[in-house]
């Protein structure tokens, strides 16, 4: 399997990474090199095999319903590039 340039643009958009037009062909080659590398897996017999869900034998631990966190607005906002009045600011989103 390989990707064409349209697919590369689509993937870049899904991943929210801007890619210059000049870079598309090169990126396409890189991705296709990796896809060639993994191609051999399609021949492996996986009949009746379950996909791995957990490498160690454990049950999902649960915690009790107690408020143990929050009230740290200063820490939450400390590294933010742009804030106002305790909110994070982003360019306006239109629904």
């Amino acid at each position, binding site marked *: 399997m390989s990707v064409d340039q349209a697919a590369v643009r*689509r993937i870049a*958009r*899904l991943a*929210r990474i801007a890619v210059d037009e000049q870079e598309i062909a090169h990126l396409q080659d890189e991705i296709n090199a990796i896809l060639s590398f993994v191609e051999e897996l399609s021949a492996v017999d996986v009949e009746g095999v379950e996909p791995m*869900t*957990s490498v160690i034998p*454990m*049950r*999902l*631990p*649960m*915690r*009790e*319903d*107690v*408020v*143990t*966190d*929050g*009230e*740290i*607005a200063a*820490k*939450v*906002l400390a590294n933010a590039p742009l804030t*106002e*009045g*305790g*909110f*994070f*600011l*982003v*360019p*306006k*989103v*239109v*629904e």
Partner: protein
Amino acid sequence: MANLINGATGDWEVVIGLEVHAQVTSKAKLFSGASTGFGAPPNTHVSLVDAAMPGMLPVINAECVRQAVRTGLGLKAEINKRSSFDRKNYFYPDLPQGYQISQYKSPIVGEGEIQVDLTPEHAIRVGIERLHLEQDAGKSLHDQSPTMSFVDLNRSGVALMEIVSKPDMRSAEEAKAYVSKLRTILRYIGSCDGDMEKGNLRADVNVSVRKPGAPLGTRCEIKNVNSIRFIGQAIEVEARRQIGVIEDGGSIEQETRLYDAAKGETRAMRSKEEAHDYRYFPDPDLLPLEFDDAFIDALKAQLPELPDEKKARFIGDYGLSAYDAAILCAERETAAFFEQATRHGAGKRDAKAIANWIMGDLSAYANAHGVAVAEAGLSAGALASLVDLIGEGVISGKIAKDVLAMLLGDDKGADPRALVKARGLLQVNDASAIEAAVEAVIAANAGKAEQAKTKPGMLGWFVGQVMKATGGKANPQSVSDALKRKLDLP
């Protein structure tokens, strides 16, 4: 019995399915220890996990799991002892991780159903496809500035139950009744407060149309409708829109729409075509959720009596009509109030009378003051006394209304018997007193008395006059009987 819409080319059937998002009642969030409390200053109910800081990891809240299982039991649904969490990947500023932790492949609850009684004659069963747990997103405010959106993550990570119905509804009325019943069940169980104004319960409405007997049409999804009234309106508007498009020769595109209540129309959301590829995969920070029968049984044992069971019991035990029972059972607290009043003092009194007082005057007062019936200020014991007093003939129904007003007003908490005595509201039952009053009124209105012989309807006027003369305290039935005798009426 489908409710068909008449179009230019004939009758159309509307097919409706609902995805209801119910905020789970819990103190802390689904995967973090921050508070779920409403109305806090921005980004204060946010932990490092909710803010998606580097290296943060989710830990599941046991109560949210229990609430989902309880709800599943309330929906008579299959409880899946093994379920798993998937990441739903998309970019949006109110989704800090860039993915929502949800359950796609294996939800915690499977198929179930809800019985919806629109009227005693018109009942439908709406199938439940599944219920799963997922994180809520934060909130963006778009109206604070012309160029920027303001993001508050307080709600980010709060537990939601997504309850997906089968497309079993065929009218706006059915859809509204379904949501109302679902809301009642959730409130009974205590797993969601159903407050649609706060956004704790919201629905995505899937609407399609078809000619009766034809295969399902393409559906459109109307997102985030937050009132039952709007759900009904949106369905009607969208169904007509789709019929219009098809009858004009067009076809329906599957899309996501929003309902604009002000304009009374639905409109397509900005195209998120690529966003539909959510790239679901199992969340590698979580293991599959597993619990055993003992876990489920413990929750089952503590479930309260559910609305359908309670309603059936009210009909059977108290002889109430299906209609009355349904109204009383709409809120668990109201049903409890009814029962406490009916059974007060280990006596059993006229259940219908109690029901009428609750559904009538007490509800009117409660609604006007924006409180629940059980919280209006009248105790169940006081209501019981009131009904007893009428039954014993101590006061008339009319006087009782006045007493109720007193008990809800200045005389809150007073004992009705004592109050009636203190204010001299005792009904006059004494036959001779009534005779005297009746005779006095007849004597003062000889002309009318004559007319009454041929116009029996005037009895009512005379009753009114005698009641006025006795300050409303005469036993109206006795007055009526006495008047009939004295006026020579049948």
